């Protein structure tokens, strides 16, 4: 019981300290763009009403989940292919690096032509940003599989899907999971970027609209919502990760307790 309390204290300690510090540091702030935390909290309930959640947050979440899911799926599939085939990797790596370094905002006209102004474009923007950490980590994870295990697999003539599932994906999964975690927050950012284009609703659209309308406390309250979304999704992610990587955490935990 006391352990759980200690854990909760550790989890909540820093955010509480930061918020309190922010509260006092910003109290009475006259700077237009750095309003007191008190003001931000005051506008929060009136800004993020149930109606707004339905009209702006929910559509954003739908696009986010779809885009993120596609990014992870594509990232793993392409990553395994590229990671496992040396020549394919040599062939596409410079090209991928080239594409990775292109700022998404400048691709807007092409996206309009190819995918229009609706949800497909916004999902595409999320995929275009979220795929890279998954892809890169998967490639590196697959490249870095243990040689001894690879040889063992060959000796036992384990190949095909069985080899992929029991060896390659499993060996690469710790790194794939890092990539998927990275992609989560990047997807939220890309969700906001995507809503700058041809959008009429959405969480990111709302935040930017507040900024343009000089409603700075409301804008900061929107930043809060984005941050909270990040925390919630990361909690959900941790739960999924514990299931998917239970064997891995098991190994590492056994090692820790055995110390």
């Amino acid at each position, binding site marked *: 019981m006391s352990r759980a309390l200690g854990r909760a204290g550790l989890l909540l300690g820093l955010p509480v300290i930061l918020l309190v510090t922010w509260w006092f540091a910003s109290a009475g702030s006259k700077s237009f763009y750095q309003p007191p935390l008190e003001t931000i909290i005051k506008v929060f309930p009136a800004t993020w009403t149930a109606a707004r959640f339905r009209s702006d947050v929910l559509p954003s979440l739908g696009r986010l989940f779809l885009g993120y899911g596609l990014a992870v799926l594509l990232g793993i599939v392409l990553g395994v292919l590229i990671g496992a085939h040396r020549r394919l990797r040599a062939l596409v790596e410079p090209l991928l690096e080239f594409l990775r370094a292109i700022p998404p905002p400048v691709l*807007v006209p092409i996206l309009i032509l190819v995918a229009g102004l609706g949800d497909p474009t916004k999902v595409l923007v999320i995929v275009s940003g979220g795929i890279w950490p998954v892809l890169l980590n998967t490639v590196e994870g697959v490249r870095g599989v243990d040689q001894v295990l690879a040889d063992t697999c060959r000796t036992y003539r384990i190949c095909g899907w069985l080899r992929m599932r029991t060896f390659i994906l499993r060996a690469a999964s710790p790194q794939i999971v890092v990539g998927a975690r990275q992609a989560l927050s990047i997807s939220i950012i890309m969700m906001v970027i995507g809503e700058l284009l041809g*959008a*009429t609703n959405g969480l990111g659209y709302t935040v930017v609209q507040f900024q343009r*309308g*000089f409603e700075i406390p409301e804008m900061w309250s929107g930043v809060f919502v984005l941050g909270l979304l990040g925390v919630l999704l990361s909690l959900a992610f941790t739960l999924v990760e514990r299931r998917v990587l239970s064997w891995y955490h098991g190994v590492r935990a056994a090692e820790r307790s055995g110390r």
Partner: protein
Amino acid sequence: MLRTRFIALLAVTALAATTSACGSDDSSDAAPATGGADKVKVGVIPIVDVAPIYLGKAKGFFTKQNVDLSLEQAQGGAAIVPAVVSGQYQFGFSNVVSLMIGQSKNVPIKAVANGNNATADAAKDFSGLLVKDSAITRPKDLEGKTVASNTLKNIVDTSVKDLVRKDGGDPSKVKFVEIAFPDMAAALDANRVQAIFVVEPFLTSAKAKGWKQIGSFAAVSPSLQVAAYFTSQQLLGEKADLVKRFSAAMKESLAYADAHPDEVRQIVTTYTTIKAEAAAAMTLPKFAPDMDKTSLDTMSNLLVQEGLLAAPADTAKLFQ
């Protein structure tokens, strides 16, 4: 937040030496330069509308007022207002609607010179509402259609709504989506929207495709004031004299630009990459030396009507 500040702090301390050694951008305060002239940075957008300030600089109108001008380009207004409020820039260029909305939210800014105006001729303005579909012939026909606006809840969609209303239509039936000026032609070409509202140089290039014009800023109100140069209340309080000299130089530049369209077309090619022949074909905005109180009040009333302002803007206070 605090983390941000902390990282910011980290960044500053780590970079203080390096960046000042690079030395390109460090002397940003409006401190008197060696020659006694006030160094002034102005945040502008690389478009035709700001030609007078470039022309005035080239003509020495600012030097004459002891103002050492440097012009900083940004893509849109997003960064210019905070930059002026914080003193990164001393002056900035912005459309009048953003300034009015800013005033209503107590942003400490004040317009100090005219920016540019629509022309007197609704059919031949530097801006235009364009359609591709020949079935759409007038603003009223836009009911149920989608129109591209560079930003939402700002000057362009407010103007289009006014045109629809004046034509007997219901502006609430028009749908707006946000697309930047440079990307609008692509959207209309691909039939993603049914109408676009563009300014020069996009207007001439879009009209060349045979698209029809059914409205403009000038149709909202002839000589409608579209933009203004503004400064922060702080600078106004501390260096009222500098602001006065900037305004005077700006006024002279605007008058000169309006009287010398050929020089405007020439100077545009120096700070953008617009080709000389394209510059020659453009319709230039009107550059009135003074702000246009009547059209500002018109716009302010439209904003109240659209619910973007709770009460009419105090244009007398905001725009001198």
